[in-house]
Every structure is written in structure tokens, then in C-alpha cells.
């Protein structure tokens, strides 16, 4: 335990480890010190001067982002002196900032707007002068630079320099002529460069993908996990009217700090697909017909009960709960269960240890490992011909793999997308995608992390764990959980590595349960 320092911030006494900055100590006291250039995942330059606070006995206001607390400090974030200084910084920032909030994507989540609203001047004293004007610039595949809105906090420059370690952004010129510069031959193509959009506290760096798509106040935000790879970056899904419109990083200092990669950021359109299986489809007299859950679950129970050999071909995006309960359906049989793992090049973020877009482009490889998906994909495909039953758990199969299904005695598809190539199956059951359900994934470091339902499921789609558990109940009489939390608790009671954890134990940043390495289950 490091040495503690006692300080009083706006009348609240707190003890914080020696070396803590005032801005972080204030958070402990429940006080937010307004700031722009400071960011906990970047080096602090103390240039915006917004976080100047009054520290009793100090001759001048001190920047809270770089000043460390000293024993006995009495710090006033909200006295007249501090507030006047902030009001002045806001006034200076606004003299050249356009008041184009009505057409600015940042409006509603803009730190300049927020702080001006909170403690800015009611009027302008910068009369009769034209504001600085510079044209909008293209900064890369998904980034536009609106120079006029820039407050030169330099977060973007520092991110590219100190975190991405590819300094393609600069501060150009001096004084009030300064702007963020880029070399036209070296744009923001770094695989993590989209983070500059999130880091920008105003609407200066904006996403082309999100451009004019939604007003921030119309968005519903849901905590989630990136489905893109085994890293398990924490994300926020922004939806508008049940449509996912944006993915953004959610801080988790242990996994992704404040960042996600561009591949993960862009990987959401499939969540909105309209070509879904909306009702259970059951083969009747050689024809697939829509039916209800009662009939289709009974058919699934019947198919599994009678099968002596079962192959499970699962998607690595399936929740641990779904993987676990689908796997339980095969407990009585000879089972070959595997997860399909698409591969891609690894793309690390140089400045953050153990953070990369991983080669294994699915989120729950380790969840599969824990749930008993021990076979390699090739082995599972090899076991398919002649198997009594093949269950496809939302895996994305190619034509050859689909052709293989026909050689099994029966195939059941628990899927999201209505893929006509799969219509030879005995049963097609509509399931939720990750944006439509609660669940957990286990990342490459064995961290079990929750994701939450962000939008409504289409039609009759249900989580795969529910489908499997209900069918299992019909087949064996085993108890079926009613909620994802129950499903997880049930699995956690039977899988030793999960050690009896519950959703409540996982919190918003997850818990490490096993050091199983990614790929072990492949």
C-alpha cells in the first residue's frame, strides 16, 4: 500500500496515494475539475488551462492535471477565483469557435458546450471581429478535421505521437494562427487512429461514418464488448430507434484503456441486418414451415434425445451462456464441438501494453474453451458426415461447409440471418445477435465480461441459451434458467474455472477467471 496524502477538495476530505494529481484526487472527492487537454490515457501538457484551481497558500492558480497533491492541501475547485479563471478560458476559447452547434455532430456531447452552459459568460465581448476561418480538411478514411472548431487541446496529436507512436499529426504555425496539421501523403490510416475522434473534446475531429447521422441526445447508450477479436475491448453501443449507429470505446484500464481499433469501431452494420430468421422454421413433409416455439423446441428436444453423436459448429460470437447450454444438449452423446475462428493480421496499439486487434477475430474463443468446445474446426467438420445431429450455432459457414451438413443425419440451425443455403436443415431457430441479448464473453486473458442488450430482437428471436435450455428441459427435465444471469450462474456452478461467479461479481469491467490462452480451443 502506497503512502496516503490527506487533502480537502471543495470541503470534502479524501486520502489518496502520494503522487496523485489534483484532478484525479478531485474525482475521489466527487468533484469534476473541468478540463480539455487532460486525458487519463495521454501525457498531460497542461495547455488548455481550464483545470486551474485555487490551492490555499499557493500564490497562483495551479493546473490540476499536472500538480500532485501535498499533505494538507485545501483545494477549491468551485470558489470565485477558480470559476472566474474558467469563465475566462471559456471566453477565450469561444472567440474563434463557431456557434454552429445546430449542425455539429458533437453537440450534446461537447465538452465546450457543456462547460459554457455550466459556467460560461452569458454574452460575448468579442464584438465586431471576424472569427478565424479555415476550411474543413480530410484527415483520413474516417476522419474530418473542422479546423474552426478546434480548441488546440492537442489530445489528437499526443495520441498519435505517444500512444499510436506514429506522429502523423502536428500543431502547425503559432499563436492564434495555429491549427492541427497533417501530411497529405500520410493520413490517419493507422489501425487505431479513429480514437482521435473520441478524444476530441469538441466537434473538430469527426467521423465520416457518423457524419450528420444522429443528434447525440437521441442516442441510447448500452455498455457492450467489441465482438471483433479476442481482445475484448469494452465498448458503448449507440442506437437510435433500435438501429445501431455507432460504436465507441468504453474505458477499461485493464483491457483497452480508452481505446478501440478502427476495425472494431466499423464492425456494427451486421447488427442491423434485416434479413433475419424471424420465426422458427420446421421441416414438415419435406417443407420448411414457420411454427411456434412450443413445436420447434419439442422437435429440437426430440432430435437431440435420439442422437448418439452430435457435432456443434459454433460462432465465436456466441455468448458463454449460449455455448454452455447448447453444449449441454449433447451431454448424453458423443460430441465434437468447435468454434470457427476467422483470422486476420494482428494490429497492436504500440503505446499500450497488451492491447491489439488480435489475429483471432472472434470475441469468445476462451468462453468456448471453458464450455467444452475442445475440438478443432477441422475435426468438427470431419465428424459431420454421418453424425446423428449437427447443431450450427450461428456460425458463418462457407459453401463447402454447408454441403457437409447434408451428409449428417440431421442438422439444426440456431441462427440470426436467414441464409437460404441452410434451408436443408431440419430446424432453423431464430436467435438474437449480441446487440439484442445479455451475455458474457471470455477474452484472451481469461477476463469474463458482460455485454448488454442494446436493441430489441426481431420477431420471435430468443437467445440461444434460452432455446437450448428449454429444449434440454423438454428432453431431460433439467431446470431451465429464465434470465441470462441465471444461465450464467448455472454454468458457473458447473464449470470449475468460473468459480461460482455471478453477474453481480463481474461488474462493468469483468473478472479474470482463467489464464487460458487464446486459441487453446481451436
Amino acid at each position: 500500500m502506497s503512502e496516503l496524502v490527506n487533502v480537502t477538495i471543495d470541503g470534502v476530505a479524501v486520502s489518496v496515494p502520494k503522487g496523485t494529481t489534483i484532478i484525479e484526487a478531485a474525482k475521489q472527492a466527487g468533484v469534476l475539475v473541468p478540463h480539455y487537454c487532460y486525458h487519463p490515457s495521454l501525457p498531460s501538457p497542461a495547455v488548455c488551462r481550464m483545470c486551474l484551481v485555487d490551492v490555499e497558500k499557493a500564490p497562483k492558480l495551479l493546473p490540476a492535471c499536472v500538480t500532485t497533491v501535498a499533505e494538507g492541501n485545501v483545494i477549491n475547485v468551485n470558489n470565485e477565483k477558480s470559476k472566474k479563471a474558467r469563465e475566462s478560458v471559456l471566453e477565450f476559447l469561444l472567440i474563434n469557435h463557431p456557434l454552429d452547434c445546430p449542425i455539429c455532430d458533437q453537440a450534446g456531447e461537447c465538452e465546450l458546450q457543456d462547460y459554457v452552459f455550466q459556467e460560461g459568460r452569458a454574452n460575448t465581448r468579442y464584438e465586431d471581429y471576424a472569427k478565424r476561418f479555415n476550411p474543413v480538411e480530410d484527415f483520413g478514411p474516417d476522419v474530418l478535421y473542422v479546423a474552426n472548431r478546434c480548441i488546440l487541446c492537442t489530445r489528437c496529436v499526443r495520441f498519435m505521437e505517444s500512444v499510436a507512436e506514429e506522429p502523423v499529426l502536428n500543431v502547425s504555425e503559432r499563436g492564434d494562427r495555429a491549427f492541427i496539421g497533417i501530411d497529405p501523403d500520410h493520413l490517419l490510416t493507422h489501425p487505431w487512429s479513429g480514437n482521435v475522434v473520441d478524444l476530441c473534446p469538441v466537434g473538430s475531429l469527426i467521423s465520416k461514418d457518423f457524419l450528420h447521422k444522429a443528434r447525440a441526445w437521441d442516442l441510447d447508450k448500452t455498455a457492450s464488448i467489441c465482438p471483433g477479436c479476442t481482445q475484448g475491448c469494452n465498448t458503448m453501443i449507440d442506437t437510435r430507434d433500435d438501429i445501431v449507429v455507432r460504436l465507441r470505446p468504453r474505458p477499461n484500464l485493464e483491457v483497452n484503456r480508452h481505446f478501440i481499433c478502427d476495425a472494431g469501431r466499423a464492425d456494427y452494420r451486421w447488427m442491423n441486418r434485416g434479413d433475419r430468421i424471424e420465426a422458427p422454421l420446421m421441416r414438415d413433409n419435406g417443407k420448411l414451415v414457420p411454427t411456434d416455439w412450443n413445436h420447434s423446441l419439442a422437435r429440437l428436444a426430440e432430435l437431440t434425445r435420439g442422437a448418439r453423436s452430435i457435432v456443434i459448429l459454433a460462432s465465436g460470437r456466441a455468448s458463454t451462456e449460449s455455448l454452455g447450454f447448447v453444449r449441454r444438449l449433447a451431454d448424453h452423446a458423443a460430441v465434437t464441438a468447435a468454434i470457427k475462428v476467422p483470422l486476420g493480421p494482428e494490429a497492436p496499439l504500440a503505446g499500450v501494453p497488451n492491447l491489439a486487434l488480435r489475429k483471432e477475430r472472434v470475441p469468445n474463443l476462451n468462453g468456448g474453451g471453458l464450455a467444452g468446445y475442445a475440438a478443432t474446426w477441422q475435426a468438427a467438420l470431419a465428424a459431420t458426415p454421418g453424425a446423428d445431429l449437427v447443431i450450427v450455432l450461428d456460425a458463418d459457414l462457407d459453401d463447402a461447409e454447408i454441403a457437409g451438413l447434408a451428409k449428417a443425419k440431421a442438422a439444426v440451425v440456431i441462427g440470426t440471418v436467414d441464409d437460404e443455403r441452410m434451408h436443408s436443415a431440419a430446424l432453423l431457430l431464430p436467435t438474437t445477435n449480441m446487440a439484442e441479448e445479455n451475455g458474457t464473453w471470455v477474452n484472451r486473458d481469461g477476463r469474463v465480461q458482460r455485454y448488454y442488450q442494446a436493441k430489441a430482437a426481431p420477431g420471435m428471436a430468443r437467445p440461444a441459451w434460452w432455446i437450448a435450455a428449454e429444449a434440454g428441459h423438454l428432453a431431460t427435465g433439467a431446470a431451465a434458467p429464465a434470465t441470462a444471469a441465471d444461465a450464467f450462474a448455472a454454468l458457473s456452478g458447473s464449470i470449475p474455472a468460473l468459480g461460482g461467479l455471478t453477474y453481480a461479481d463481474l461488474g462493468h469491467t469483468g473478472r479474470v477467471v482463467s489464464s487460458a490462452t487464446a486459441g487453446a480451443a481451436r
Partner: protein
Amino acid sequence: MSGTAHAAHHDAPHQPVFVGKVKDKLDALFPKYPTRMACLLPALWMVQEERGWISADAIAEVATVLGLTPAYVRGVATFYTMYHLHPVGRHFIQVCGTSPCHLCGSDEVMKAILQQTGCGEVGATSPDDRFTVVEVECLGACGFATPILVDDDFHDSVTPERVAGILARYP
């Protein structure tokens, strides 16, 4: 008199600056600094001495030679007002206009220079490409007002009357 080379062919393909003697000069600097980045200001000076100005291609070359990115180099180059990031006339004239010199009549000197060079306005290059004239902040010779720099040559105590004689030395 050290005339800056005229940047006549700035559309032509970039010929590397750091070859031969210029490269030797830069290489000789490396041991004097613990980092290569520290040689950035000197390297930019070398480019300007050789080419009269610092083109985008030259910035890219400097970046390569020093292991930096072009954006980084440009950010630094634009901080320092003495680097020409655009072509300038054959002779570059800097006239001090800060308060001490202003008190002593630098405005009149500037007027005479603008008129006699044909530049017309501050920051402009004369139609014959002979001169570019800028106003600079304090040249550090306030006791010898008005000081001007023509290329690397320092002229102090310049008065409107002396302008013609000085300009004549820079064909």
C-alpha cells in the same frame, strides 16, 4: 554577401539535398547531439541554404534522414518564422518593426524599401523575383535602428536615404 539560391524550378522532381558535402556536414553534426531529432533545426537550415526555401519534398527528405515523420517536421518548421516554406525572391529582406525601431522611424524605412524593391506590400515578392520583403519582430539591434537583414547580411542604422545604396548591392 551570401545570396540565397533562387527557387526557380520548384515544380521539377526533387533532387535530394543530403548528398555529397551537405550530407557530410549533417553527418558531422550527429555526434554533437544525443539524438538525431536534435539535428532538425540545423538540417532545415541546410536545406534552406542549398535551395533557398524548404519544399514539401525537402521536408519529407529531412524526415527520412532524421527518422521522423513529415508531419512532425512540418509542425516544427512552421513554428520558426525564418524557414521559408514557400519560394521567395532572390534576396530576402527582413525589416524590424517592433516598438524601439518604430520609435526611430522604421515605418519610413519599410515604405522606402517596399517602394524601391517594387514589392508594394509587406510579405510580397517583387515582380522581377528579385526581392521578398517582410516585417520581422525585434532583430535585437534596437540601438542601431532601423536594422534590416538582407539574406544573411546585417545592415544597421538604415534610413530611407540609405535604402537605394543597400539594394544596389543585391542584383
